[in-house]
């Protein structure tokens, strides 16, 4: 029983020793400088210009392919002279900031939006659209026929014309099933890699491609042989 009493001695010592709990919501820990927690778009501290230049490296290197970057050409003000004439500076289209209802200074959040570039595509036909169609859904269908889907840029211009928030347009567009908000894409195709190795009898690239097309013996057609 001596061991039991020794155990009790230790626990009573801990009963009176200082505690290590950190009251999370009230005391937060200062994260070390290198901590890779939240992925954020950061802006230049002085000018508030986004640091991201849409080099799309993060999208390419992300192992689980979790990052997709949509970028637009931006020729607004830049501090650094353009290394290449046509810079791919980007801004990241936030969700509803365009419909920011309040006047006055906008909160400078990293998701800052630069103004919608006016001179892209002939959107003059948008202005008289509502009168022709008579109702909003008709206008949206007209846009759909023209572009194949409802591009966000056009929707925002339409909202600006109607003086209404874009989210109303979004909600009405998403109500009807045939209106599409995303461009049609052919999806993700996974393929095996190729390559050969002399030390090993590895299949050549052509052999691998040839193999890809044949179905797995136990796959597709009927019950598998091995079962």
């Amino acid at each position, binding site marked *: 029983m001596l*061991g039991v009493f020794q155990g009790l001695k230790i626990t009573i010592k801990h009963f009176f020793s200082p505690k290590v709990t950190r009251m999370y919501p009230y005391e937060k820990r200062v994260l070390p*400088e290198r901590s890779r927690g939240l992925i954020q778009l950061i802006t230049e501290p002085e000018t508030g210009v986004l640091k991201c230049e849409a080099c799309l490296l993060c999208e390419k290197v992300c192992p689980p392919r979790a990052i997709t970057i949509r970028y637009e050409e931006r020729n607004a003000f830049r501090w650094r002279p353009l290394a290449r004439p046509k810079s791919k500076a980007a801004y990241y289209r936030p969700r509803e900031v365009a419909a920011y209802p309040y006047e006055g200074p906008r909160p400078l959040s990293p998701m800052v939006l630069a103004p919608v570039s006016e001179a892209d595509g002939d959107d003059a036909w948008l202005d008289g659209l509502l009168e022709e169609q008579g109702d909003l859904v008709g206008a949206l269908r007209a846009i759909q026929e023209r572009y194949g889907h409802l591009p966000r840029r056009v929707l925002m211009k339409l909202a600006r014309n109607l003086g209404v928030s874009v989210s109303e347009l979004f909600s009405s567009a998403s109500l009807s099933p045939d209106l599409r908000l995303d461009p049609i894409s052919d999806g993700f195709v996974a393929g095996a890699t190729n390559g050969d*190795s002399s030390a*090993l009898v590895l299949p050549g690239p052509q052999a691998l491609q040839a193999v890809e097309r044949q179905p797995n013996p136990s796959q597709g057609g009927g019950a598998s042989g091995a079962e």
Partner: protein
Amino acid sequence: MSEAEILPGQTEDGSLPSVFTEEFSLNLGPQHPSTHGVLRLLVRLSGEIVVDCKPYLGYLHRGVEKILENRTYMQGIRYVDQFDYVSGMLNEHSYVGAVERLMQLEVPRRAEYLRVVVDELSRICSHLVAIGTALLDLGAWTPITYCFRDREEILDLFEELCGSRLNFNYHRVGGVLFDLPEGWVAKCLSFLARFERSLDELEEFVNGNELFIARLVGVGVITPEMGIAYGISGPSIRGSGVNFDIRTYRPYSVYTELGFEPQLATAGDCFARYLVRMAEMRESVRMVRRALEGLPEGPVRARMPHYLLPPKGETYFSIESSKGELGVYLISDGTANPYRVKVRPPSFVNLQILPELVKGQKVADIVAILGSIDVVMGEVDR
């Protein structure tokens, strides 16, 4: 008496035995507080005694070996990190070591020393979790909180070093990612001093305690022959006196320079394995201290091309992870992606002996034995 009417357990002449017992099966897991992760054990009991035990695996199978074939070497490190999620650094070291061995690459000495420091700290984390949860399954509520309190300090050190607390992504082919931030060495050395005192306290708490001895001694005995036949490695086999530690069996990195000594116990039961893990933590503390004191100057990473193209060929490289021999059999076909990565996870192999050990023991011992073999399901199911 026709065949159909004989009840189970009934003798031929039709008389029922005095005590009419019937085996029944009990499902431990997969959502079970004391199986470490999602492991399901179908156990057939007759009263208290376990008649048969059948583990069911695959609940955490993510198909990492297939994913690794579609990722470049650099991207693969993130996936290898998630095998044994309580000691991330050791997994990375095995994958990165395999690629370096394939490329016959000389890693700068400072990087090797940093790898030893980080690996041994990660081993301490893993052993703390192993011992804490094993004792929790026996019903002792307090040791696990002492273990996790110390583990938090190590995770803070890792966060300062490489930025994250679970998926570290710190090892790179040819070295390590960052050098030590200033003030890190002092923090680490002070932690080691505090940690040794809390290890003494934990040992005082558990070693003499009659209840722990009653629950752990003589339970789940692995004889050396049985252990080697079942391919057990790590603290589980060193608890039976087999001197098989990859750091001295096939020395890699700078362990020989740091004078590493494998820790053995003789009894081969759950208590011996617990003692080996405690001794290994003390050895790891010595290793980290020696590595930090003798840290050579120099670059932290060899000069590597951005687009890594290892030569064609195959290699088998294994390190001593906290659970045992973590081997990586790598076949590369000269392209940016490995052709085949087969990982030899120690928990997967050590778990194979569980049904063997549990037959004939009591129900309450299943959890004690499982805790002493120290299995992490992320590594078993890959």
